[in-house]
């Protein structure tokens, strides 16, 4: 087993316990690997870096929202790879590229390279958020974008603390769906 796998899996396990610092490091490191992966795949079919960045963000969001589907008894790499590849195929399908254009790859490929030079993605989260229900908008904005605590957000949005959490959870899912739909051809 590679050190990358061991390190990242340790971060994942800590993040599942609710350790925010580990979660952040994990997403940062995964986003660099995903960027290298998507740039490589999209370059092969003549697509640009900003599209790769859209995919990186879609995949990071998916990893965050779907982290309950990771089974700690399994290695992390194949799980990340399956999500990364799924999002790639989904994106190509949306943009009417045939699935046959997706190169066959191995799970390790998604962890093989590191690329920290991020491009700006094409979507604007604050604009997309305006399509969400008011409660979700307020909760996500307060906690995720403005960095307030859950208690502060509850006061600002006039919701209970548990309602803030629920609205963030549902809101991020809805946001991920919007991003998936918005990513341009």
């Amino acid at each position: 087993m590679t050190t990358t796998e061991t390190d990242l899996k340790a971060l994942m396990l800590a993040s599942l316990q609710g350790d925010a610092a580990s979660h952040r490091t994990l997403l940062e490191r995964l986003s660099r690997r995903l960027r290298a992966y998507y740039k490589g795949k999209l370059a092969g079919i003549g697509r640009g870096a900003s599209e790769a960045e859209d995919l990186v963000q879609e995949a990071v969001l998916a990893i965050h929202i779907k982290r309950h589907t990771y089974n700690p008894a399994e290695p992390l790499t194949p799980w990340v790879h399956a999500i990364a590849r799924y999002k790639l195929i989904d994106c190509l399908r949306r943009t009417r590229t045939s699935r046959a254009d997706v190169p066959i790859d191995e799970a390790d490929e998604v962890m093989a390279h590191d690329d920290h030079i991020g491009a700006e993605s094409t979507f604007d989260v604050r604009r997309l958020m305006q399509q969400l229900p008011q409660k979700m908008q307020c909760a996500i904005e307060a906690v995720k974008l403005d960095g307030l605590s859950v208690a502060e957000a509850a006061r600002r949005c006039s919701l209970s603390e548990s309602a803030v959490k629920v609205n963030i959870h549902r809101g991020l899912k809805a946001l991920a769906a919007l991003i998936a739909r918005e990513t341009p051809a």
Partner: protein
Amino acid sequence: MKTDDLVTALSAHVEPVDHRWVGRRMGMALAAGAAMALGLMLVGLGVRADLMTARAVMFLALKLAFAAGIVGLASVCLIRLARPGGERRTSSIPVVLPFAAVVLLAAISLGLTPSSHWDKMVMGEQWLECLLSIPVIAIVPFAVMMWAVRQAAPTDLRRAGACAGLVAGGISALAYALHCTDDSLPFVAVWYGGTIVLCTLTGAILGPRLLRW
């Protein structure tokens, strides 16, 4: 937006996550689907009148074993397929075993009977009822299973859909068997097996559309 900003946003207030959630949610869906299929059968069709006779019990046990085998094997598959990358570690071969067993038994039972009786053994009294009931009863468990799978993250939507269809078909056959009085093995192989395969194909067709995330 920059990816770093997204990462920062997502890392604000991270909640602990329960990794056993997928298995538990699927178990709940399975139980709820089975209960609803059973309820639908009781209200719509009713249990067979001779349920308690020794002959009925024996044939019923065979049918139930067939359907329960499918439900058991297919739900193990489905729980794996619900997680990203699960399709790489899941073989579809075991789910074929109950079908193979029932076809083999049906062939043996046909072999032991004069061919003039084959027609009646295969068609039974109520083939049409069986053909309609199993897929109709399967709709509710199918919806519940798909709802549960959607909340996980399947990455092979066609196989996950097919597997959900197979589980739903199996649950439905389990419920329908309590009503059905056609006991010949060839009947079970053709009409139970056939309608469950039909449910599986429907699931495979609907999977990519219903399970996208």
